[in-house]
């Protein structure tokens, strides 16, 4: 295997407008973006409630979320497979080997990451920001928005970490998606398949797409969060 030649082939493949390759990229991003969008608001609210709320069992819930982060994606995939398979409790939904199943799996993968990291962001935030917003007349959602803006750097870091985790995970997508071309084949499952066949060029090309899009995403988020000013008090 010549690495240089493989890279050249990969670049050529990228710019040749190969529909199969860009179809895989499309599946990957539509599935992962939808998955993270669906869990973003519930994760924010739960993370905020865990940081600012006072109720019994708060630390137990937080510990459970922290533990869920370390469950391998393939195990989540296995649980979901058993649930969605014909003999499983949700077999009637006929969701196995569809993009919906992949979205569900990726939601389960990124939800604990988002809650845990967003909780850390809110926990380290300044309580005065919340109190100042309320005392100056903000409603609860507006005060939460102000607080989110104040800790947008760690919150966006949480979103980047969660998105990176689901866009690159193989286990769950492979188990519940089935790696079906033009339907459930995404970038990581395609790389795994092509590499096992010895077709490295497409794998490298897809890897490059992932890197470029990750870079683009980070640039976009950097613009969105604005300039950073270190607080002195």
């Amino acid at each position, binding site marked *: 295997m010549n690495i240089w030649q493989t890279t050249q082939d990969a670049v050529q493949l990228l710019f040749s407008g190969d529909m199969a390759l860009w179809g895989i990229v499309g599946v990957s991003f539509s599935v992962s973006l939808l998955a993270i969008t669906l869990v973003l608001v519930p994760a924010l609210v739960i993370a905020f409630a865990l940081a600012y709320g006072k109720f019994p069992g708060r630390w137990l819930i937080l510990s459970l979320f922290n533990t869920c982060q370390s469950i391998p994606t393939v195990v989540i995939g296995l649980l979901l497979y058993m649930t969605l398979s014909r003999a499983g409790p949700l077999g009637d939904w006929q969701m196995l080997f569809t993009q919906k199943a992949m979205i569900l799996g990726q939601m389960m993968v990124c939800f604990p990451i988002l809650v845990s990291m967003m909780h850390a962001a809110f926990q380290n935030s300044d309580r005065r920001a919340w*109190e*100042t917003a*309320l005392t*100056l*007349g*903000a*409603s609860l959602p*507006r005060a939460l928005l102000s607080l989110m803006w104040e800790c947008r750097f760690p919150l966006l870091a949480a979103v980047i970490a969660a998105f990176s985790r689901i866009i690159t995970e193989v286990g769950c997508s492979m188990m519940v998606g089935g790696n079906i071309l033009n339907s459930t084949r995404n970038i990581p499952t395609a790389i795994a398949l092509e590499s096992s066949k010895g077709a490295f060029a497409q794998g490298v090309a897809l890897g490059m797409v992932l890197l470029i899009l990750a870079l683009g995403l980070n640039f976009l988020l950097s613009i969105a969060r604005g300039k950073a000013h270190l607080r002195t*008090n």
Partner: protein
Amino acid sequence: MSQITIQAEDISIRFKDRLLFHIPHLKFGPQEAIYLTGGNGVGKTTLLKILSGLQSPTTGTVNLQNQSWFARLFKSNGKNGVIYMHQTPYMFDGSVLDNVCYGLKFALKGRQEQRSEAITALRMVGLETLANEHISVLSGGERQRVAMARAWVLKPSVLLMDESSASMDKESIERQVVLAKDLLERGSTLVITSHQQNALTALCRRQWCISNSKLIERADLQLIKKDKDNYAFG
């Protein structure tokens, strides 16, 4: 601006077995300026936060805490009209003007009107030239002045000032006094905590003191000037 009377009944704060304070009855109304004193850790800040609705007491009620969670979800809190100023004010990430405009956004005013009111407020505290500067370049005293302008611009019914003159020089305190007097004339109520007596505390005609977990009220006190810089109760 609506004038309101705050009434608290049987309020107490308890941390596990430690009773911070217990106040059977507390009432104050429009155009009153109250000087709240007490040593460190007696609960002055906690009392102000309870009165502003930012903190719930262990027992008792304050007549302002009647807005339901549902109402707070969808309505702005502005009608409450009680503003609590932190000992070290929190400034939102943005310009000085953004910070003064913050509360005005919820008063449903036009952008131009918000801006002109905020600039007027900044002129009153002598910071109009810094309106477009980022808040991070301001000193502690200047931030206190911005916090005062941010509160004044909303014309609150009750302004609870927690050590708000702590890091201010004489000129800044005098500017703060002008705004405080203006609010009093409009019918606001002020509650001021401070460890140092100054021109701001001199506005007060009532004094509360928290001591031994109790609030002692010394009514109808007149602040007399002892010498050029010092004031004393007489």
